[in-house]
């Protein structure tokens, strides 16, 4: 009774206050609530749309499936031994006039077609920068490849063509068991000339590298900078790499200098530079000593280049083999964690995006003075507008090579100067010096574990 009474009083009080504040009748009140909800929903979806758009974009960008028929055609072209006026070369002059080998597989052959190559097949790359007076006279920097072979002696290139002070030296030179940098009877190279070699890398897994989105490479770049206290890639000791940006903003990833973005583009460059097969993507090189040579036409069509690309994409990816021997297995496992602990994984990052077990960040790193070499393996002049202005690779900068398949790609480093893995590690200077030092200060059995791990990274 009492309770009821107080409740009544309460409701009475409520009524009173409602009377006090007169709420005007609003026929649209319900409608207004609806409108407000609508606005909220619209606002929420507007907020969510950028993220949703990005998710959609990411989900939709998938690598196209391999076209087996095209890959088959590509294999034929890859293994084909080209001859001058080759019937496969359409209306062109076929092999040459200057070339480094007569088939792709002649160089890319270790561990099966598509593998790396020995040092005999190294490619000679040069850069010539004009001196001050030449520059004043309008001289431009030149770069290119000195080819080892030619269809006839008239076209044969030699170092003498690169610079008049260098001897008429017919390639190949010094392919002894020990790597020698190119010098001429003890003299160093003339000023402004840079001559270096490039060893043939394996192509297994190149299709996966091609499919990595630019943002995954930029992610490595940003993560490294953040990790090392925002140091820049100019750092001489911290392993901070940089993505090579093209003029159009895309990220380079192929080649020892990460100079090429797309696999398809590299294939076109390789056809022209190595075999002298001109194609719509890249003209064949003019012989250095015979600049007036007129090619008859293109040797390859776009379709043929695409077939070659499809063949490379269809190559199986390298594998991380589990050793059958239990003891070796244990050693390799210990080596894998040591590999991370001594700092190799700062650059040789195991996974990039969705690609597992590649052991590279695909970034350029300053590897110290010992490794310095210019030249970008194209026939373009140095002022070539391909790179974002001022961001072309420096002489000491090298792309971290993926270590997958490293068990079978000796010799190592960009010019094959290292005969084995220990040798390669000891040659890490600059940003790699600290982890190489860490490796050297490991006890012998732990060093062996690291090598045992690297030896599990095998070709398919």
């Amino acid at each position: 009774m009492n309770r009821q009474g107080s409740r009544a009083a309460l409701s009475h009080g409520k009524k009173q206050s409602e009377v006090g504040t007169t709420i005007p009748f609003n026929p649209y009140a319900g409608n207004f609530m609806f409108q407000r909800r609508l606005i909220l929903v619209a606002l929420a979806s507007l907020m969510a749309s950028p993220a949703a758009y990005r998710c959609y974009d990411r989900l939709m960008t998938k690598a196209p499936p391999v076209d087996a028929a095209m890959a088959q055609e590509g294999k034929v072209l890859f293994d084909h031994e080209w001859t001058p006026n080759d019937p496969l070369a359409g209306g062109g002059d076929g092999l040459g006039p200057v070339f480094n080998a007569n088939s792709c597989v002649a160089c890319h052959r270790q561990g099966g077609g598509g593998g790396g190559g020995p040092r005999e097949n190294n490619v000679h790359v040069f850069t010539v920068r004009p001196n001050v007076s030449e520059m004043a006279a309008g001289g431009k920097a030149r770069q290119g490849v000195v080819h080892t072979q030619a269809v006839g002696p008239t076209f044969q290139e030699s170092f003498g063509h690169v610079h008049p002070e260098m001897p008429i030296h017919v390639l190949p030179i010094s392919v002894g068991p020990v790597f020698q940098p190119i010098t001429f009877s003890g003299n160093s190279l003339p000023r402004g000339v840079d001559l270096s070699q490039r060893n043939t890398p394996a192509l297994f897994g190149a299709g996966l590298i091609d499919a990595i989105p630019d943002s995954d490479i930029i992610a490595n770049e940003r993560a490294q900078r953040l990790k090392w206290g925002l140091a820049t890639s100019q750092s001489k000791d911290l392993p901070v790499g940089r993505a090579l940006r093209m003029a159009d903003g895309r990220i380079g990833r192929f080649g020892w200098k990460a100079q090429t973005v797309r696999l398809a583009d590299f294939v076109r460059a390789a056809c022209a530079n190595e075999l002298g097969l001109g194609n719509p993507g890249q003209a064949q090189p003019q012989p250095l000593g015979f600049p007036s040579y007129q090619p008859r036409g293109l040797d390859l069509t776009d379709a043929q280049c695409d077939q070659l690309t499809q063949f490379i994409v269809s190559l199986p990816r390298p594998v991380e083999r589990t050793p059958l021997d239990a003891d070796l297995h244990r050693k390799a496992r210990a080596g894998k964690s040591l590999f991370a602990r001594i700092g190799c994984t700062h650059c040789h990052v195991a996974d990039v995006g969705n690609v597992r077990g590649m052991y590279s960040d695909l970034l350029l790193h300053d590897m110290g003075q010992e490794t310095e070499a210019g030249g970008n393996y194209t026939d373009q002049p140095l002022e070539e507008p391909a790179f974002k202005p001022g961001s072309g690779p420096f002489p000491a900068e090298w792309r971290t090579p993926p270590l997958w398949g490293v068990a079978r790609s000796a010799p190592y480093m960009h010019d094959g100067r290292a005969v084995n893995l220990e040798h390669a590690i000891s040659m890490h200077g600059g940003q790699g010096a600290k982890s190489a030092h860490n490796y050297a200060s490991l006890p012998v059995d732990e060093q062996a574990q690291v090598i045992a791990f690297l030896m599990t990274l095998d070709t398919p």
Partner: protein
Amino acid sequence: MIRFDCQCGKTLKASPDLAGTVCSCPACGAYVAVPHPLSDDGDLRETAGAYALAAEQPVACVSDEPAFVPVSNPRAPFKRSALEVWWESQQNLTFVGGLSGILAVLTALGIALYPRLLQSGIDWPSGLFPALVWMGITAVVAGFGCKFLDAALDSALRGGGPEQSPFLEFDPGSALASFTKWALCFVAGPAFLVYEAIRFWIRCGDLSVVNATILLELTVPAIGYWLVGVLVLTQRPDLVVPSPWQVARCLRTLGVRAVPAGAAVTAAGFIHVWLAINAIILLHTSWLTGLLLLWVCWFSTWHCGAIAVRTLGSWTAPTSRLGLS
């Protein structure tokens, strides 16, 4: 409306919900207690309707949050202009200058120390000790800055005027406590958003419009949540961390003003982060210039922070000049 007289002789009017609080007189600037409509002989008839309920419940208990205890300051004879109010937040230049100097050096040390620590790979434990020492010292020094911001916020909540909390005192204990408060407010919500923002920035590719928008959508709530969280915690010292409900309620008090405030604070935040990044990069090549830029960055950060908390504080203060006429 409540009518009452100031000591300068002017008759003031205040809305009834300011009853019991201290406001400053628009004419002379003095602090005046707004009388309670029922205990004083204000305009009872006008407020009777609205206060029929208040008669049963004293005003101070209407809100379930403990009301801020207003302190009257009878010796504030001059009316303060907006410029003055701003200048008050810029006081203590030597304090902030010195603090920023020490923090700049500590930042530079941290940046030099951190990569060394990482690179020593195999012998990591030997590097752990200097890292811990560095973290402890930095927390205390940053704590003095937090105390400075606390004082600014506190004075804003009291309705303006110079800081009254003793942030100039050398008291590492309370500095650490203040740092902990700010850090806890950061951990209880914004940390997650900031972590997501950094993760997104790392993976986003070069910043396109879409990417920049997503980044903005992560950072604006993070910074806003942090500041409002500190605001809540200052008004409710009984809490350890602000709960999302209290933050939401405080945001409702702020209303649409939260939007321009959030935009301004975020813009300032981005500018300072950008400045700091450049300063840190510069440290690697020319340490003196880098250090100088870091100092500028810290100096400006504390001042911008003070302006931000003062503004937010004055908007949510239970005691305010708003509503007086």
